[in-house]
């Protein structure tokens, strides 16, 4: 693909727990271009965050990457040593914007220091220059540069989220992974952050992987959407196509479940059932127990990934030509 930035092939990340092996990410593949925004959608527990952490090999034990490839500029990140990853990839090429609910900021250091940290230790900048850049970044995200001297507990949720975004941009990465960047925020602040992200992406032209369960956010920002279910990608393609002509039953159900502000007030249609146990997923298609269009073959065999449009893929037997 032209100006391809990231190519993920058959990524598998399993968690080795006392209960058994949890196949959190099972054979996930997608590609991402330079400057493209991809939304990664799905319910909680479907494996989106784990996929993101797997890209820079930051999966906490007892999990680890068991197979597959993550190609960035010819390097396979899944095979790289911790040392190399740290030196070459983390934060320099790929950085993360963490959930607002998380304590991504260390309580004992000022936020300015924490933003500057990767610049000082990673890129070898001297302190003075780094702090100048910190002020630049803070302005960029719409904060008063004086905030650099504050401690995390002194900031509001929205301010902290902006700090985390500024931090992610510190080394001008090619790819920013945004993990539920607006989930813990109230609606007004959510809108502000979204607008900020849009603006930044337009200005700096970096790629973004936007992880969220909230499809409306994806609709605002993403060029491409990948829908995950039970550790697998069930559909991915251009955003406008996915939203207007979803092909996978799960995608369709998700979109149906979103309440609309305008239009006739119908009953809310939700998806009955629960996601499968990832230690012992059902054979065949993982969605079949909840699928309205389930067929016999779905119970037996896993559907392959089928191209049904320009860069539009779906993993469903409905579209397999037999």
């Amino acid at each position, binding site marked *: 693909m032209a100006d391809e930035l990231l190519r993920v092939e058959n990524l598998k990340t399993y968690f080795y727990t006392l209960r058994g092996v949890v196949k959190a990410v099972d054979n996930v593949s997608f590609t991402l271009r330079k400057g493209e925004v991809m939304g990664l959608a799905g319910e909680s527990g479907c494996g989106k965050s784990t996929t993101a952490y797997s890209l820079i090999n*930051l999966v906490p034990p007892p999990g680890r990457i068991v197979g597959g490839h993550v190609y960035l500029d010819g390097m396979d990140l899944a095979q790289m040593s911790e040392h190399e990853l740290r030196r070459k990839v*983390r934060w320099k090429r790929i*950085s993360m914007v*963490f959930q607002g609910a*998380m304590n991504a900021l260390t*309580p004992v250091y000022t936020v300015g220091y924490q933003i500057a940290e990767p610049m000082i230790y990673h890129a070898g900048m001297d302190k003075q220059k780094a702090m100048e850049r910190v002020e630049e970044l803070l302005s960029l995200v719409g904060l008063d540069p004086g905030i650099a001297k504050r*401690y995390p507990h002194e900031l509001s949720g929205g301010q902290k989220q902006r700090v985390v975004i500024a931090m992610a941009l510190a080394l001008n990465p090619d790819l920013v992974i945004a993990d539920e960047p607006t989930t813990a925020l109230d609606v007004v602040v959510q809108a502000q952050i979204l607008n900020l992200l849009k603006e930044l992406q337009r200005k700096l032209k970096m790629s973004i992987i936007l992880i969220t369960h909230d499809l409306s956010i994806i609709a605002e920002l993403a060029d491409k959407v990948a829908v995950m279910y039970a550790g697998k990608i069930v559909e991915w393609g251009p955003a406008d196509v996915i939203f207007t002509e979803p092909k996978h039953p799960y995608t369709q159900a998700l979109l149906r479940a979103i309440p609309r502000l305008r239009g006739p007030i119908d009953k809310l249609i939700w998806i009955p059932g629960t996601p499968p146990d990832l230690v012992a997923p059902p054979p065949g298609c993982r969605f079949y127990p909840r699928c309205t269009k389930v067929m016999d073959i779905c119970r037996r065999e896993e559907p392959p990934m089928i191209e049904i449009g320009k860069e539009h893929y779906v993993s469903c037997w409905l579209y397999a030509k037999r």
Partner: protein
Amino acid sequence: MGLARFASVQIINALIVLLVVLFIVTALFTNLADQEKKAAIEEAVAQMKPPASLKTKAEIQKWKEEQKQILYEREGLTKPYWQRVFGYMVDALELNFGEANHMASFKTQSKKVSRIILEALPNTIILFTTATLIVIAIGIYLGMKAARAAGKLLDRTISFLAMLSASLPMWWVGMLMLLLFSYKLNWFPSNAIDVYVAIRHASNILVELKDWIYYMTLPLITVVLVSFGGFAYVTRNIVLGVMNEDFVMAARAKGLPERKVIYGHVLRTASPPIVTMSALSIIGSLGGAIITETVFGWPGMGRVYWVAIQENETAVILGETFVTVFLFVATIALLNFIYGLLDPRVKVG
């Protein structure tokens, strides 16, 4: 809140505690001290020779009573109880504790209680501060190692050692040390107070230092041995708790070198509770100092306290109690202050 205000709050708190405790102890003691004074006066009066002019027994008796009253007045025993308590308190705050009956200070053999305490105090501080510093160093090192290798052999050993050290009497371990290293093997001396005899023969400061180290080794090893396990274990718990926090993963994601993550982010965040723990550790070992020093004969505050109790030296006891409480309270205040320095959530906002 600002650093200055935070510090003053600590100091005020400490002073309040000090005054309250001083008041309680003094009130309890005044009674005892009075009884002693009265007995001393009775004895002195009994020895007195009545003037030749008095002949009858009744007259002599009356004269003796009068003498007693004069002495009572002089010693202030006729004043109301609470006034005397207050008087003792003021004395204590001025660090005037009076004199001991028989006891004398270690170096200068002075009978002044303040001197006795002043010469014994540094010994206690040297022993226990050195021990605590060693324990902190070993404890943090082992605790962090155990936290990073959680569940493995080192970790489990440390857990067990911690449990052991919470159950072992420090002074009993001291007895065992003496039994083995002092009496059986003759490697170390058995009565540390002999250090004062030894240093009189010391030719220069280096030899004197060597003598001190020689006498201090066994008690030092005992204190460290019994304390490090617990400290390492609590460090391990704190560090483990911090390592599971999100910001640690965030720091790793930022590509920071592992050393920076562990020492810069984890240890730094864990330091406030570790400092609190150090405070408790020092206080704990100081509290038990009395017995430990007695076992080894270490010439410190604890031993002075013990001897004073046995010899009924009320003035020394009162002075020691005051100084001990003062040390306790000051240490707690100091460590609260350091906690405030290390944890911005406390002092700012």
